[in-house]
């Protein structure tokens, strides 16, 4: 009996499936590590000309290192794990997403963090952004409004060893009074205005980042800066280099 093409493909699928199952966790982790490093290199290259890099010529090496270290696949739901190292947002349930890695890199970069900084995150979501921040600073405080997400992110952060992220379920509008002031605040949950209390909890010369757009499409980033005299200035930055005008006007 000759094997039909259908049978051939079925056999190869089985072989592939068996190969996948037989990979040891170490091998799988190595594989993810390679994918992650490739992705971060790619992001670094793509973002070289972004508006949000401001005066720098490229992303901060510390941010790139953090991105290369945090296992994004540990924060992605099982069914999307294989897409963990694609530069795209992925659904995490409850109408929320784990942000696009390039956007995470940009937002983190915009905060210009120092190791001793204390950071507040409004909208823990998957916990991935908090983990990236935790690679860079000593303490990250993160608030999530959806109880199920808050619980899951707390577990994932604990499992991956990010003990320096302190999570809480609750309303982020009033910030985290007991731990204020913060050197940096990142607001990943949509907001139609910037909560005044959050601004108050930002130290002079502190920075706040807010992505504007939808869950699957960040349209621009808003960087809020508090000056030494506590004046507030924002910058509206595109994730790409794009000028709406051609020619001289």
């Amino acid at each position, binding site marked *: 009996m000759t094997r039909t093409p259908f049978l051939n493909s079925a056999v190869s699928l089985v072989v592939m499936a068996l190969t996948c199952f037989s990979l040891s966790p170490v091998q799988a982790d190595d594989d993810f590590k390679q994918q992650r490093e490739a992705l971060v290199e790619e992001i670094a290259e793509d973002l070289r000309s972004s508006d949000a890099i401001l005066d720098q010529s490229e992303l901060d090496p510390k941010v790139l290192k953090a991105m290369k270290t945090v296992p994004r696949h540990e924060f992605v739901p099982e069914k999307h794990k294989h897409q963990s190292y694609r530069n795209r947002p992925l659904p995490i349930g409850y109408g929320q997403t784990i942000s696009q890695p390039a956007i995470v890199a940009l937002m983190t970069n915009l905060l210009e963090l120092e190791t001793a900084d204390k950071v507040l995150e409004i909208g823990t979501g998957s916990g991935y952004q908090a983990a990236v921040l935790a690679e860079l600073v000593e303490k990250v405080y993160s608030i999530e409004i959806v109880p199920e997400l808050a619980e899951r992110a707390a577990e994932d952060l604990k499992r991956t060893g990010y003990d320096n992220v302190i999570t809480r379920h609750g309303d982020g509008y009033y910030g985290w009074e007991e731990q204020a002031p913060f050197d940096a605040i990142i607001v990943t949950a949509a907001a139609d205005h910037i909560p005044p209390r959050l601004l108050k909890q930002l130290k002079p010369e502190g920075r706040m980042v807010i992505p504007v757009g939808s869950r699957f499409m960040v349209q621009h980033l808003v960087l809020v800066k508090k000056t030494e005299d506590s004046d507030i200035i*924002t910058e509206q930055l595109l994730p790409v*280099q794009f000028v*709406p*005008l051609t020619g001289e006007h």
Partner: protein
Amino acid sequence: MHPGAGYLLTIAVISGATLAYEVLLLRLFSLIQWHHFAFMVISLALLGYGVSGVFLALARQHVSRHFSSVIMGNLVLLALSMPLSFMLAQALPFNPAELLWDPRQLFYWLVVYLILAVPFFFAANIIGLSLYQFRRGIPTLYASDLLGAALGSIGIIALLFVIDVEQILLVLPYLVLLIGLLLVTQSPLWSGRQKTLWQASLLVTMAVTLFFMPASLQLNVSSYKSLSQMLTVPETQVLQRKSSPLGVLSVVESRQVPLRYAPGLSILSDAELPEQLAVFTDADAMSAITRFDGDYEPLRFMGQTSSALPYQFKPMQDVLVLGAGAGSDVLQALMFDASHIDAVEENPQMIGLLQDDYADFAGKLYKLPQVNVHQSEARAFASKTERQYDLITMSFMSAAGAGGGLFSMNENYLFTVESMREYLRHLKPGGYISITQQNTHPPRVMPKLVATLAEAMQSFRLAPSQSLILIRSWQTTTLVVKNGTVNQEEISQLKQFSERYNFDLAYYPGMTEQEANRFHRLKQPYFYQAVTALLSENKAQFIADYKFNIEPATDNQPYFSQFFKWETLPEILSLLDAGSIFLLESGYLLLLAALVQALVASLVLLLLPLWLWRRRRRDRDEAQPLHKRVLAYFFALGLAFLFVEIAFIQKFVLILHHPVYAVTTVIAGFLLAAGAGSYLSGRLRMVQARIQVVAAVLVMIVLSAVYISSYASISGFLLAQSDLPRYLLAILMIMPLGFCMGIPFPAAMSMLGREHDEMIPWAWGINGFASVMSPILATLIAMEFGFRVLIVVALLLYLLAVCLFPTDSTKPSAGHNQLNV
């Protein structure tokens, strides 16, 4: 054989129920997903008509032998598939928001409309097979089909007002099953055991539908819509839900985490917000009802938003709030002591929320002596009222360009040059128009608004460069236009207000570039640059060079949210890896994608079977040229009919104002008249079919030419009438056009029925496919060239149809004779 009255009634009901189902699907998908996808999915689902044509063409002899069973079988399947298709389609993990990220979504998209095409396939089988079976009665049948569709279009609007949108999904199958039962019982086509069997089947289906369907009919609203997201917050609940053709309103209360709705609020504001209830339209587009008890202190935040700018200049006595919605702008006007506020809101149910359901919560806002509520579309009100205002304000009305340009295909008559003239006409000397919008970055909405306004101001001898003011917060932009020259005092108030709340100056007469871009910095002072250029002599060049389409919108091309430019596409695509997707004006591209899908589907589902069928019977086929002509003729008709209908719907919507009623009236008028045309063409046996078609097309050309050339005076005349005569006169104007449009289809069909009956299903299918492509093409043509061009194209297609009228060219003498009945 001629169909009896009962049969004609059945055709009318099937046709009406199917049209109602189409409108219903549009509503349902707008609710569970987003309007633009609803539009595309449903227009493509109509492919079911085309596929039915192919099916009947290939199987006609077999199905014709079992005619009565096939008709009833399809009727039962139609009834069952109406709710089932929708339930299945909404169960798929299709997420339009992920379309640009995940290629699998394209597959789901395809599956969604294949599933939704099923009911249309069964409906088209019933009508197509009937046309084939009763070929001598085609004009009467077609007339019933059109008449039914007309009644369906009115009926569904009425139903949407009285019952919940998901319940209608069960009403329509019942209607279909009932008419089936009536037909089986009274028609001689069914007799003896067969009759009993079908009666039993229909009753069982009704019982099954009644017992099993309602429990499982839950709407699966996308978890990415803002209502779904808000409901994930603990102790948040929907207090009330109201449904109408204008959308489903949901009032939501959040106890643990208060709602804080204050778009455009200054970054420096420290005001605590009062209690609010969220109001969502179609599970999105949130607004808020704010608690009000007569004390203005809790409303202090309303004075700290960018939209509060005009109130800094002088006390406003007479204020017109267009798109009053849940009342934020009305409260703001009250807070600033306006003594007469005309609040215009289109949705009666929204007004109901404020006047009845939550009147106490809202401090009887819409019943206060200063507030006059008008249930009307904004532009309609502006064209009717004679009152002059100190301030006309419009906040966050649907000009929004946010969301990747997904609204680009929606016609919008609120923001056109002509509408701006209308608003300007109602300003007192020294009065203001104030428009607040969400920022788009890079700027799109405001530059287009400025271009549109500047064009409108030319008719008023107003110098835009001396009359405009633009400020922005980190999230909103407020444009103020003065009926007069902005003076020094106003400039100084503007500066104080902006300085106090960290609003950026983007334009005022005499402003320098250094003053721009201070608090909320953009890479360059884009807004200042855009406004200065748009108000200068370089305007045309600037518009041409800008990377988004910011040409002023007009009534002829009312696509305010169409910002797409082909020239920018390569640059955006080259940045795709870096995340430039948000720059893609994807609405336009999705429309193109839909067109390509429709074309591919037509090729696969129509031309491929046609080709295979012809190859199989090549040796027997004597009338090949006729096939091509039939194909071309009915394709042209399918395109042209909807082109004309869509173009004139738009023209009349503008005169009749209320979009829902206007569209319904115009569609029903067209279909009724076309039905009458079809019926009469069957009666006029002494007139050759071809002559009938030539005459009809000539009359259409003359009428269209008259309507287009004298549109301004016709609309002026109609607008001066009160509602009833205006609607009646509009219908009177539509009818002759519709009447003529009803003739070419049955005239050629009857000809085929006499000589080439095997071609009838083909013609039906081809016409169906053209109807799928027609609305998409019509929108693209109107976007690019305007409605006038669309009408001209439609008329050219009708002329082409005249030339192609399918006489049999292989047998000229016989063919000619057959036309004389």
